[in-house]
């Protein structure tokens, strides 16, 4: 697969990219191997199915409860954070989020911003905005550092560089990291990256991070990570900017451990991560370290649209573990880049339409066999297959009473599809007509078209039997 341009290619070209990805044996093998590894690691963390189900129930209820009270919890979170000395900003869309962050960085005459892993910063394309403003934004998560070095986007929300082999990374480092000698030892490669980043942490004026859980009652931002780069970004530079989606809030501290435990087990098969940061404000006068100034940017970017519909609200339960993509047979075949969106895989198929509109994304919810693997592993029980079906419906219809309108509503509508399904319903609601069709299709089975669209790409044509079951059953009487 060619390397991904820095900005996302449109989701509407999904089919071409999927076909190219599927034809790439190397890519398929590497994704299959990586996903199998993650599936097995997760499974080892959940030996008792009954225990898992009770943990899922608790996590689902915490997320549903938090969303049910989202407006109040966000207000409470803001009050607490402000009281803790954190400046809170609200961004309705990607542009606003970027403008806020560029503004803060400029006020501090920033030349370099170091970034901890943040999918929301990818979602709003912050690195672009920073580049336009002439400020270097450097990814410090090793996976993110690798994809940034190669001018790519993450192909997985937890493991951004999972599409790359060790050899590819070795060549990339030798080529792009000044002074780095070629090595394909993983430890040495990480050492090279760390040496570069260590300098950058010291010189960056601003550190940026994501947020995994924002606790309303205490104004605490929780950050889950393994590499320690998140702690560096949030403590070394004098300004810390956290960015997150409005759905990440929970009411109480006690709501965090059940979600944290499921997040790490579902994501990487770890019982706990190496680092878990709880950040409640900037450095206080008597404290020796931590940033002197701290900001939180709360991003909507389409989340309110999902929130306003009872069924689609469950999309926002997501804690971004990535288990749905690890278990998805489609993601495993095509990898993350083919989707053309920040969030690939099943969660991407149900969240991207709210962020980018159905006009650009209506093909994504169709890229599923509705096998249900995603819904089965989702730690917060998002009914992903049902949401995929719902989005297919919204893409095929104008806004109707009882359904909150979506941006790009009806974008997949076509007279042909309407005619096909109306004709289908007309026949299947008229038994005599249906039986007549069966009679004709079996009598003239020799005339079955040899080319049957997508079916015959890799299959022989479907051919009716000599007699229908209806006829065979009728003959017995």
């Amino acid at each position, binding site marked *: 697969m060619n390397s991904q341009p820095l900005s996302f290619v449109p989701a509407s070209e999904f089919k071409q990219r999927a076909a190219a990805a599927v034809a790439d044996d190397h890519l398929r093998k590497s994704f299959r191997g990586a996903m199998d590894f993650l599936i097995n690691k997760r499974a080892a963390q959940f030996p008792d199915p009954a225990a898992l189900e009770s943990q899922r129930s608790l996590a689902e209820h915490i997320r549903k409860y938090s969303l049910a009270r989202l407006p109040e919890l966000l207000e409470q979170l803001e009050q607490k954070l402000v009281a803790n000395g954190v400046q809170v900003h609200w961004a309705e869309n990607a542009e606003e989020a970027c403008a806020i962050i560029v503004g803060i960085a400029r006020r501090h005459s920033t030349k370099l911003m170091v970034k901890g892993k943040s999918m929301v910063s990818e979602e709003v394309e912050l690195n672009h905005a920073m580049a336009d403003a002439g400020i270097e934004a450097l990814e410090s998560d090793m996976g993110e550092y690798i994809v940034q070095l190669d001018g790519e986007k993450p192909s997985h929300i937890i493991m951004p560089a999972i599409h790359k082999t060790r050899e590819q990374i070795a060549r990339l480092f030798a080529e792009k990291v000044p002074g780095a000698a070629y090595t394909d030892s993983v430890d040495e490669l990480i050492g090279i990256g760390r040496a570069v980043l260590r300098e950058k942490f010291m010189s960056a004026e601003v550190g940026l991070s994501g947020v995994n859980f924002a606790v309303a009652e205490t104004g605490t931002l929780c950050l889950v990570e393994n590499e320690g780069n998140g702690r560096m970004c949030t403590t070394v530079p004098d300004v810390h900017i956290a960015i997150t989606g409005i759905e990440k809030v929970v009411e109480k501290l006690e709501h965090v451990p059940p979600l944290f435990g499921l997040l790490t087990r579902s994501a990487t098969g770890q019982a706990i991560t190496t680092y878990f940061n709880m950040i409640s404000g900037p450095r206080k006068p008597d404290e020796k370290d931590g940033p002197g100034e701290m900001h939180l940017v709360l991003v909507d970017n389409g989340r309110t649209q999902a929130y306003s519909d009872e069924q689609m609200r469950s999309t926002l339960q997501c804690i971004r573990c990535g288990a749905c993509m690890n278990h998805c047979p489609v993601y495993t075949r095509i990898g993350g880049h083919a989707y053309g969106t920040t969030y690939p895989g099943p969660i991407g198929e149900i969240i991207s339409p709210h962020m980018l509109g159905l006009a650009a994304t209506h093909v994504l919810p169709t890229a599923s066999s509705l096998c249900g693997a995603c819904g089965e592993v989702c730690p917060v029980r998002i009914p992903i297959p049902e949401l995929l079906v719902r989005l297919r419906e919204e893409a095929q219809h104008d806004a109707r009473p009882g359904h909150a309108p979506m941006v790009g509503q009806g974008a997949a509508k076509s007279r042909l599809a309407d005619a096909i399904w109306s004709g289908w*319903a007309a026949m299947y609601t008229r038994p005599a007509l249906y039986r007549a069709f069966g009679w004709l299709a079996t009598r003239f089975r020799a005339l079955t078209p040899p080319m049957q669209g997508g079916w015959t790409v*890799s299959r022989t044509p479907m051919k009716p039997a000599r007699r229908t*079951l209806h006829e065979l059953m009728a003959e017995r009487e």
Partner: protein
Amino acid sequence: MDAAGSRHYPEKPEKVYLFGTCLIDLFCPEAGMNAVRLLEREGIEVLFPADQTCCGQPAHSSGFPEQARAVALAQFRLFPEAWPVIVPSGSCAGTMRRHYPAMFADDPRLLAQATALAERVFEFSEFLVHVARVTLGDQGGPARVALHTSCAARREMGTHEHARSLLAQLAAVEVVLHEHESECCGFGGTFSLKHPAISSAMAGDKVDALKETGAETFVSADCGCMLSLNHTLQKRRDGFQGQHLATFLWQRTGGEGGRR
């Protein structure tokens, strides 16, 4: 959605309805006939309402709920007595049992009908195991068989366990597990038409995994998966072919005389 879980099963009935499904009707009627024969051999009379067509799933999963509802509604009145409704396909049974109530949630009268019907719907292998409680006498020679269950059957109806327990009754049949056994075969109804590249890759991998077991055949309780895999194999000019579970069970147990 969680699998069927703990369902209360009735006593073996005198009669059942068969909902044959549109795919079996047109493309693999023998599977339907063999399901009927197996049920009749257990002393159960099989009623086949002639006005049945399709459960509505294709329109439902394609984003056309009105059309799906119209077709589903046309099936409601075909099963007037309280007999169980047997469906020889996990995904159609899943649609009727799991999705009908949600499809009619906004109309209390139709919801009551949908729920009443859903409660009587049994996937074929589920019915054989838990209601008919069959005992199968294997009359075939030694055979290695792989099993592919549809995702809807597995995740909505728990069918993989039912099919496995039926096959386990066949003394000379060795059931072999294939790699990524629980993974989708890539059929997915209209998915196979809309996304042929991805669907073909999935079907190809499934076929490879089934063949790698060294099995002589594979068995599926879903006609859709079976057709997709068989036609994939035919395109490769590969003689390895799958059979519907009903057909396999009927043949292994020697037809009429097969009941122990």
